[in-house]
């Protein structure tokens, strides 16, 4: 398991995962209630031996499907099968431009070769594909090489580097792998194509002129359902964990919306902070980093003030 991945590779937890028929029941409820966009992610969705038992029926529901995968399990037959009814968008995360670096992150010998073969199979079958990377201290030196690698295949490339603590609350090595605040800001100042996606969203959303804490679209027009059928506002905020297969879809969605509507307001320290327009903190970040929905996240405070210094330098 990649050390940056936040999904525990736990056999007991895998056994709790919803069945294919459960997933399809949920999808049909969601479509009946207006779902148009659906992202399939993990962990690694293709680890499920019954992946196509879920995916193929989903392609007939009138959804715009996106698939996030690490690509290592995509063989020629799987790429051909995907091409029969492809996702609107597929994104593969790469962890390095060489086997040495890639596999120092994944910890799986041969995974770099498998990933490259998976990418080539999808390119051959003309699947709409983009590459991205999670940048850590271990692979940052290959950022440009990864971009060139993507472009050599004719594929777009983006990078992200703001890693959170694990979602399951277990001990992580986050301090060893995520970039420092100054490194993040330095990178986003030079890596324009990737920075756009990360910072513009954050900046726009953080300038909301009120004290609302959950300022994005989570729990308003979007939800997440985890492998065990629990619904959340977003993938990083594992509350209120209501189960639509038990309560009914509409009731579950209402609970999630109520949770967002009744979330505590922004902490006064954050509300009054002069670097707030530059801060990407949200309740999910706070929950992951300090167990609250509101408290400042020191890592993001550093990033926000470093951004403020850079972006206001010439004002």
């Amino acid at each position, binding site marked *: 398991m990649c050390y940056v991945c936040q999904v525990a590779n736990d056999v007991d937890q895998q056994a709790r995962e919803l069945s294919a028929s459960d997933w399809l029941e949920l999808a049909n409820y969601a*479509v009946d209630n*207006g779902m*148009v966009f659906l992202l399939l992610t993990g962990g690694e969705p293709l680890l499920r031996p019954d992946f196509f038992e879920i995916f193929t029926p989903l*392609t*007939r*529901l*009138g*959804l*715009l499907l996106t698939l996030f995968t690490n690509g290592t399990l995509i063989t020629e037959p799987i790429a051909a099968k995907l*091409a*029969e*009814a*492809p*996702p*609107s*968008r597929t994104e593969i995360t790469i962890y390095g431009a060489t086997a040495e670096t890639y596999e120092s992150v994944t910890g799986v010998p041969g995974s770099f070769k498998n990933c490259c073969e998976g990418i080539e199979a999808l390119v051959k079958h*003309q699947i*709409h594909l983009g590459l991205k990377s999670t940048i850590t201290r271990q692979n940052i030196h290959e950022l440009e090489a990864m971009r060139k690698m993507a472009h050599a295949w004719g594929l777009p490339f983006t990078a992200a580097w703001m890693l959170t603590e694990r979602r399951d609350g277990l001990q992580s090595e986050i301090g060893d792998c995520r970039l420092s605040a100054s490194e993040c800001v330095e990178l986003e100042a030079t890596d324009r194509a990737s920075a756009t996606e990360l910072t513009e969203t954050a900046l726009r959303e953080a300038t909301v002129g009120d004290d609302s804490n959950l300022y994005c679209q989570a729990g308003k027009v979007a939800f997440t359902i985890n492998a065990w059928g629990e619904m959340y506002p977003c993938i990083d905020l594992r509350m209120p964990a209501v189960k639509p297969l038990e309560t009914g879809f509409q009731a579950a969605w209402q609970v999630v919306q109520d949770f967002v509507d009744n979330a505590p307001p922004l902490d006064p320290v954050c509300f009054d902070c002069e670097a707030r327009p530059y801060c990407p903190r949200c309740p999910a970040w706070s929950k992951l980093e300090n167990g609250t929905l509101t408290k400042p996240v020191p890592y993001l405070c550093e990033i926000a003030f470093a951004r403020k210094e850079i972006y206001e330098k010439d004002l």
Partner: protein
Amino acid sequence: MKRKEDFVLQNIGGENLLVPIGAQVMDLNGLVILNDTAVYIWDLLVKKWESDEMAGAVAEQFEVDLETAQRDVRAFLNEIAEMGLLED
């Protein structure tokens, strides 16, 4: 001409969304938003029509003159033909 069958028409929050399915995703990556007149035409296109013949149906349904209906129907059909939504 008639419509391809590789699309699902959904009404979400009052908007009519035409979403490609199957291999059609390769050719049209996204969705098409239809107004009510376009939905009427899309429904008609389940069977084969000539453009002028369809304009007559549209003129009658929406109580517009035939010339206006012909112009609008041709424009719409050309547009969705370019998107690959039609077959002969």
